[in-house]
């Protein structure tokens, strides 16, 4: 399907963009790299009549703030995030997650903020709708669900596919959001509603301005894995990010684990984190934690992967991801 006609307004800055979005109302959407929005407009799952372009706003380079935290402009291209020395030195988990997105062309256009704000996906929802799935599903304003016909009306199990969000959750990042009511700070988890119909907890004029990564604690290690069918140009089958912080005695002082591409929102695996916290991590414990995370996440079947297959995949890959994090934490100590 061809891209339809729409108006385009180029924002002079973030505040200007917010003001334009506020005055244009529901018909408008912000566009940064457009790697998610434009394909969705082409397949008629997004239909803004006006785009407010953020492309003219030069992102500020990543910077280390006086308190040791790192501020990354939300308009930073994913490719630049991969290459930024400050990110590589202090938040390699973010660089790894950014590198896992799409292919190089996608990363050259797609932005950090855009990756977090991508639309949830479902095999049927993301098809072209001119002769297939013509009548809208719940998410497209209709009254059916093609993927899960037995679902209650209005329940949408589209899956949120961000690769970067789980990494940011594992690092306990914060988001600087600007909107009509001014600026506010959110956790990354608070960005997501958990509702496939409307996955983002943002108002129409809200924009993420920056991501703040708190100062990395000592003896911390990270792990990241994106399970995919092939080597690149992929949405995840399951995405997992973890950070383990060790105490001076080698026990696990803190664990943060997040999963992507499993449900309508990135999922934090708190019950698995609790298993690890305070315990002496060994192979068996990591396996138990991974199994607990897989169980608790209760992945939705998506893109041909069964719930059982996804649970198996998370169990195995997360254990390896935790092992990688533990190894790095020990090396850091």
């Amino acid at each position, binding site marked *: *399907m*061809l891209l*339809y*006609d729409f108006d385009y307004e180029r924002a002079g800055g973030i505040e200007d963009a917010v003001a334009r979005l506020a005055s244009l109302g529901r018909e408008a959407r912000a566009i940064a790299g457009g790697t998610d929005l434009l394909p969705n407009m082409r397949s008629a799952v997004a239909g803004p009549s006006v785009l407010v372009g953020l492309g003219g706003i030069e992102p500020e380079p990543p910077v280390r703030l006086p308190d040791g935290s790192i501020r990354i402009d939300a308009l930073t291209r994913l490719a630049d995030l991969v290459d930024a020395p400050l990110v590589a030195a202090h938040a390699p988990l973010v660089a790894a997650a950014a590198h896992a997105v799409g292919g190089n062309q996608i990363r050259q256009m797609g932005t950090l903020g855009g990756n977090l704000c991508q639309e949830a996906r479902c*095999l*049927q929802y*993301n*098809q*072209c709708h*001119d*002769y*297939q*799935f*013509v009548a809208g599903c719940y998410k497209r304003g209709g009254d059916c669900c093609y993927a899960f016909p037995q679902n209650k009306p209005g329940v949408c199990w589209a899956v949120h596919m961000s690769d970067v969000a789980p990494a940011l959750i594992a690092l306990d990042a914060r988001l600087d959001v600007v909107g009509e009511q001014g600026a506010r700070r959110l956790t990354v988890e608070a960005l997501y509603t958990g509702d496939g119909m409307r996955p983002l907890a943002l108002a129409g004029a809200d924009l993420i301005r920056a991501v703040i990564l708190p100062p990395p604690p000592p003896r911390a290690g990270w792990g990241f894995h994106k*399970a995919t*069918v*092939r*080597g*690149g*140009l992929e*949405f995840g089958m399951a995405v997992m990010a973890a950070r383990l912080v060790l105490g001076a005695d080698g026990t696990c002082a803190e664990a943060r684990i997040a999963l992507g591409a499993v449900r309508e929102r990135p999922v934090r695996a708190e019950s698995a984190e609790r298993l690890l916290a305070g315990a002496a991590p060994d192979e068996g414990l990591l396996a138990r934690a991974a199994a607990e995370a897989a169980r608790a996440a209760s992945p939705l079947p998506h*893109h*041909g*992967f*069964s719930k*059982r*297959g996804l649970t*198996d*995949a998370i169990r*195995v*890959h997360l254990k390896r991801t935790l092992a990688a994090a533990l190894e790095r934490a020990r090396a850091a100590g």
Partner: protein
Amino acid sequence: MSRVGSSIVGTSVKRTDVIGKVTGTARYAGDVKLAGMLHGKMKRSTIAHANIRRIDASRALALPGVKAVLTHENVPRVLHYGAPHPRSISVTCDQYILDRKVRYWGEGVAAVAATSEEIAEEALDLIEVEYEPLPAVFTVEAAQAPGAPQIHETAYAGNVLFKPVVVTRGDVAQGFAEADLVIEGEYETGRPTPAYMEPNVCVCQWDNTGKLTVWVSTQAAFMVRGILAEVLGLPLTRVRVLVDHMGGGFGAKQDLFQHEFLCALLAKETRHPVRMEYTRGETFVGGRSRHPCKIWLKQGFKRDGTIVAREARTVFDSGAYGSHGPGVTIVGTTALTSLYRCENVRLEGRCVYTNAPIAGAFRGYGVVQTYYALDIQMDEAAERLGMDPVELKLKNAVREGDMAPSDHPLVGHGLEDCIRRGAAEVGWAALRQRPREQAGTLRRGWGMGCEMHGSSAYPGIKEQGNAIVKMNEDGTAVLLTGAAGLGTGAHTALAQIVAEELGLAFDAVSVVHGDTDIVPWDIGAFASHTTFMVGRAAQMAAAEVKRQLLQRAGEQLEVAAEDLEVRDGVIAVRGVAGRRITVRECMGPKLGIPAANLVGNGTYTPTKSYSFAAHFVEVQVDIATGQIDVLQVIPVHEVGKVVHPIAAAGQIEGGIQQGIGHTLTEDYVIDPATGRSLNAGFVDYKMPLSLDMPPIRTILLETAPDPGGPYGAKGIGEDPIIAIGPAIANAVHDAIGVRFRHFPITPEQVLAALKEKAGAAA
């Protein structure tokens, strides 16, 4: 690189198409832009099986910018073949441009021409179609069940396309009675699609004499011309088909597609040129996939590995139209008479309509499916006989004089040569003895698969290759050929053959192709036959020009033509130093003598030659995740004579990539309840990427040249996609002891099979 003389065939000269392709100046059908050109779009059905009760285009016609709308009510109703070589047994005559009935979800029901693509698309929504739904069937079982809805009135019986093919040799019952080991298995293959880079596209224009010109991406320009002329009621002088470059076809672009007829009719109706191009999604839905296939195979073996009986039943799912269903079924089924020798054979192949999108010709043409089954079962037999699979396959490999599936004797020992060479190359015997990984979760395995494939579609079609070679007065030459250049480098190979034969530099030969009004008739580029068949025709045409050239030179040098030879552009008296004349001098005008007019015509009607291959593959299976990675491939191909080593290796590497996709990741999924396509696009249809490709160490052998091909050359196009599949499946078995009998093999299935195996062992 400009090479001369006898080194041209066998040298990787710079391909004639590469500069145009890498600089973007090569012209494809989709690049054609004509003054006043309109854009056509097709409305596709929103149901898999239905009668069209009412279709109303009035609102679409009222939309500003819309110039014409076609429905079944205003297009010619001519039952026609959808595939080339009409009236052959390979294809079916079962389609209309637009019918009163739809047979799969997404079939075209109307077409619009408008001043822009956007308006055309908008107009599609304004066409109202009322359907009378019919029960639909999406599996061959459902399609053959009692009471199943009949999809075509033209079918042989029920939904069976044509009379099932039955092949018998010897006495199967007797063979099984003598067997020490009988193995039977059921095998099932998926629905990969060719996924060519260039979507289907055509531009049509009528001139004021009533002549239609079509720029189109097709492998078979003369077939497009023939069927268009037949359906539109035109003499062939009123249809001209042009094909310059193509972005792949893989067999599927032999067919005529609905939009090609509609584009011509829209152009006629509007008196404007019209362009129609498929979206990527339409290349899936309105394209041609491989036939999903179910194979029941049973073989009997003696203790020493001799095969004493083979019995098989195959069922190919043709989807909503016949396309190449009969050809694929016949070729795929009869292939089971061969590869591994067996005197007692009984095979039955059938092809069945369903309400799925259309399956058609695709690289490997039925043999991908049946040799997958055969070679996996050979591996299983070796295990149960306690033999090395290489030894078992070598013991039974077809050889010189054996009857090929085409019922003529094979030339040479190509298959044995491939197996032996590959086994030596990888150190197979030592690999069999290697210690196996016990720790960790990674298990490595080696597997081997074999194949043979014919160059040309004989005996299903009696083919014919044609070429005209003209020599210019400066001693350069022009080859006129109808062979399509679908990206394989065919025109380069043909020019090499002409240069070689004429004793000219490669650069001294140019190729004219892709215009049905100019070049000699051509059957189309398929069946791995272009280099073999058209190459031989080009060689014959060049030889005729050479004969005339030496005749002329003989007169000039006052020697007999038989005493002359031509090399590097120079004609010399054999064995006499100094008595020479350049080709240019010989050809050009002299005082009072005009330049020569030398034209050679070559026509070649081949039977068939067979190429052979053995693929050796190492895989790694993660037993925790079920992930299968192909670590390396050593393909050994016997092709008679290598014309262009890099292009030949490129064919092999591309075939392996496609074959890895078939075996592990690619499957075009049709919703079993409704017939909707679930992954008609490159995000969700998973082709392997460059990142996924293992190292490939290609070995080309020239040990069994075929006297039918130019310099002994045989085909290479289809072969590489056939052996890779069973090689991977056999390697997976070697790694984890699980025998898969289907493709694609997914990680979830690997895990499930490992669990089952562990459960059975416990």
